[in-house]
Structures are given as C-alpha cells and as structure tokens.
C-alpha cells in the first residue's frame, strides 16, 4: 500500500534506540509500546479467573488452574532445555511433589503452608539425586531415562501399595477458597516466568546456554558443567514439584495419575507449540493446548486425532513457535509518517 506524501516507519526502531535511556519516558506511546506485551498477559492472567467466576464457568475455572500448573512444568522443561537436557519425564517432578505433599498431609496431618514448601524443596532434592547419576547422558539417552522414571514409580506404587496404592491418598486438606488456589498458582507462574527470563539473561544464564551450545568450550573455561546441570535440574524439579504439591491440595487427593504420561508429554508439546527459550512461549503454548484438549473432550475418541492434527498444522505452519512469530510481528508494526516535501 502506498499513501501519497507518507512513508512507513517501524515503531520499534526509534524506541529501541532510546529504550536504554531516560528519553524513553518522554512519550507515553513509547512506554505503551514497551509495556503492553508485558502488562497485557499479566492483566489477562489476573482478570480471566474473575470473568470465569462472574459468568459461572466452574469447569473452565478448573481448566484455567490446570493450565497454570502445566505451564510450570513447561517452563521447567524449557529451563532444562536451555542447558541442553531434553526431559521426557516432567511427570516425575510433578508426581514426586504431589506424593510428598499428599503423604505429609495424609499421614502426619501437616498443614498446607508446610507441605507445599517441603514438597517443593524435598521433591526437587529427591528428583535431582535420582537424575544426577545420568547427568552425563546426552540428548535422547537422557530423555529415555527420564521417560522411564515416572512409569517406574507408577508401577512401584501399584505393586507395593505404597501411599495407598491404586486408591491413592484421599481427604487431603484443600485450599480455603478457590481464590487462594487460583492466585497462588498465578503468583507462582509469574514468579517462575520472570525469574527464569531474568536468570537466562545473566552471566549465569550465559553459562547455561553455553553448555547447550558447546560443553567442551565451557569445560575449557574451567566451569564444572555437571554441577551447573545439577543446579538446572534442581530448579526445574522445584517448579514441577511445587505444581504437583499444589495440585494435590487443590483437588484433595493424590493418586497414581500424577505419574501419567500426559504430564510428561503436555509440557514438551506446549514448548514446541509456543516456542522454546523464552518461557513466555512455554506459557503461551500451555494456555493454547490445555483448553484445546479440554474443549475436544466433547468429541470422544476423535479428541486425540483432532488434537494431533492441530499440533501438526501449528508446528508445520509456525516451526519457530507461536511466541517467536508474534514477537517478530510485533516488532514489525509500522505507522505512516509524512515524507518531507521534495522540491
């Protein structure tokens, strides 16, 4: 499109040049341009539960919380992937956290404000110790072992009747109101999102990304890559274990389904769909996948077929991930400015 006397100008160019200095604050429009993509999603996260409450959508309230929970697993996956560890067993972190919180509450009657922190840190520690021996494995080998762990726990619990066996542990303390639960998980999601994005941009984050890039160069730099990988696993496991502990108390029961394959696959699919490396992509992907998956329940057995089809179309159409696509397009927004008249 051509407009006489005007030319197109990118919105972000001038802003980018100024955004490091105080001059950015001279224009409310520029502030808006910078803040909008950050504030809008946060506002949406906070407002959606209110809207669902007002419109009486109890079911979708549950779906929303589930999406928040899965997005913690997805961000954890993305974090691990940033050091080059591909986990196919996010259910391990989720399940261990869920069972620790469940057992502490069921057997010892510990209150929620104790079980969740203990399950988060304890679960992360246990998972890290479990995975530490295989830290030297790379790529698909690491993935296969992590895939096996949750299935292994699943069978152990079934066979030994540990922690209630197939029945699970019922009657756990629930959150006083759905609001506590909702905003607790939203808070956790936001903390994770911004903390991870922050970490990955620090020098420590450079080391993380460097290990994925070329671990020999990192070793030549005198940095113990295995110790860094252990730290990354701990962080990822803590996010997952928190999600699990939260879920136990949210639904008031913990059963073998916490180790289900779904919990391992969903986070990976979400990151692939949303785009990796940014954590925001992981969250975006989850908030598309989880509601879609619930929506498709109406179609019975066709659900998985449609679900897979949507996944394939998205991945083929936007191999970089939805988030990266949106980000690129946002930076390409332009506006009409007058061209100085030529003599």
């Amino acid at each position, binding site marked *: 499109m051509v407009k006489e006397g005007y030319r197109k100008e990118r919105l972000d160019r001038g802003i980018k040049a100024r955004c490091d200095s105080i001059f950015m604050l001279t224009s409310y429009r520029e502030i808006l341009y910078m803040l909008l993509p950050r504030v809008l999603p946060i506002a949406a996260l906070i407002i959606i539960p209110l809207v669902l409450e007002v419109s009486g959508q109890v079911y979708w309230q549950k779906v929303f919380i589930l999406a928040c929970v899965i997005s913690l697993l997805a961000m954890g996956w993305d974090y691990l992937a940033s050091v080059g560890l591909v986990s196919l067993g996010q259910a391990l972190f989720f399940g261990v956290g869920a069972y620790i919180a469940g057992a502490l509450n069921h057997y010892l009657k510990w209150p929620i404000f104790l079980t969740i922190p203990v399950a988060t840190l304890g679960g992360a520690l246990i998972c890290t110790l479990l995975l530490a021996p295989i830290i030297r494995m790379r790529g698909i080998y690491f993935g296969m072992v992590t895939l096996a762990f949750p299935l292994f726990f699943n069978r152990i619990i079934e066979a030994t009747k540990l922690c209630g066996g197939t029945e699970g542990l019922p009657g756990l303390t629930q959150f006083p109101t759905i609001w506590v639960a909702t905003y607790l998980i939203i808070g956790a999601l936001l903390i994770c999102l911004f903390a991870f994005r922050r970490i990955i941009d620090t*020098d*420590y984050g450079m080391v993380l990304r*460097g290990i994925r890039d070329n671990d020999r*160069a*990192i*070793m030549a*730099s005198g*940095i113990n*890559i295995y110790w860094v990988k252990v730290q990354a696993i701990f962080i990822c496991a803590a996010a997952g274990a928190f999600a699990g502990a939260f879920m136990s108390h949210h639904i008031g029961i913990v059963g073998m389904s916490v180790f289900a394959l779904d919990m391992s696959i969903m986070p990976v699919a979400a990151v692939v769909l949303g785009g990796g490396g940014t954590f925001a992509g992981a969250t975006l992907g989850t908030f598309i996948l989880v509601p879609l998956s619930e929506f498709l329940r109406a179609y019975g057995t066709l659900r998985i077929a449609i679900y897979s089809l949507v996944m394939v179309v998205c991945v083929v159409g936007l191999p970089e991930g939805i988030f990266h696509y949106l980000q690129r397009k946002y930076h390409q927004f332009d506006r009409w400015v007058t061209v100085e008249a030529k003599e």
Partner: protein
Amino acid sequence: MKRDLLKVVNLTKSFGGVRAVDEVSFEVAEGEFLGLIGPNGSGKTTTVNLITGYVKSDKGKVFFKGKDITGKAPYAIANIGIARSFQMVRPLYQLPAFKNIVVALRSPRVMKEIRGGKYGELDDIAIDLLEDVGFERDSFVPYKLASALPHGYLKRMELARCMALRPDLYILDELFSGMSMSEVAATMFIIEKMKQGGKTVIMIEHRLRELFRVADRVLVLNFGRKIAEGTPKEISESNEVKKAYIGVEVELA
C-alpha cells in the same frame, strides 16, 4: 635449575588399531616456551587432549606442579591452571564474543581473584581481553555474536579465553592455522609478549618459522612417538626430523 611445571610420563593412547600417542614423555620447566611439531596425524592434538583431560589415557601419567592430574576432568584441569585452545575452534556461537570470555571469567579460579566485582565489571574485563588480542572495540566486534565472526577472530578468541583463565601453563594448538598473514603477524606480537612476560607455553604449530623464533625447545612427534627434542637450531638441522617432515623443509630453509 627451574623446577618442572608439567611432567608427562609414558603417555599412551590408541584409537582402535591406531596408536595415536605412543609412550610420550617430556617435561616443561617454569617459564619455558616449548614447541611441539609433527606431521598431520602425528598425535599432537591427542597429546594435548590427554594432558587436559578430554581423552582418557590408556597408560602413562601427567604431573602438574608435582601433583598427579592424570584422568582429572577438563574443567578441574583448567582450574588448576592449564588453559588450552582448540585447533578446531569451539566458540559459544549463540553468545556475543565478549560473553564467551565472561564464561571463562566466571570459573572458580578467576572468581577467586576478582571477587567483589559487581555486575558489568566482568564484561569490561572480557572486552579488554578481546581488545588485547586485536578485536576492534570501536567497530563493536566484541559485541557481535560469535557465529557472525570470521575464523581468524574465533582463533584469537580462543587465545583470549586462555588468557582470561590467567593460567600457569598455556597450551596453544595450531593457533595460526586459518589465520591471514596479517593476523598471524599481529598474534605473533602477542605471543612474543607472553614469552617476554615469562609465561610457560606449549605451542603446537605448523608455521615453523614463527615457532622457532619464540621456542626455547622443540619436541617432534611422528606416528605418536617422540622422535627428536632440542633447540630450534638443532631440530632444523636434524636429518631425522627432515625425513619425517618432508615438505616443510622448504619452509625451514
């Protein structure tokens, strides 16, 4: 007599049927500049990999400052004070050049020395180091992604990463290969300065003219075996070396 900084005893390594390194022994004294030469495939890089822990030896021991460091992990060896460059450059392609150096500055060895530096200071140190090896600060080369840099720059970045570790021993593996003549000349200047500064260096190099200018002693490998050892003058006159090294004679003359 100065004490030995590095001592290698009967180092041996086979890959399948190939004896890449065969009973190699040598010492490097503190402040010495050792040249390591040999035809392609003679086991020079493998020797470096054995010393720095990237490859496990079949036999033999490595002592550094009198301590046995055989079989230690590469990062542990880097922290003890042996920095190596890679013949095949190994930059962190997704990071800006100066962040490649920052990673080395974050090693426990360096952090101990420059403790207390606030965020940003590491960046400055890194950029200074890159400037030292010839990255033009004004043209923002240090800020470019490593993947956008030409090969010669990546080679010099390897050197900067070694320097960042403030090591007691430098091992430079064919630093000059793939560099332009002017880059070699500029880098040679840095190497000469290192020598004047009394640094201990093992330098593997095919450009014998440059190497012989700085080396105190030269070691020759062929088919994984040490075939000669001596001053640059002795080596360039040795018949055995010439036989092993056909084709380089022209350069020696």
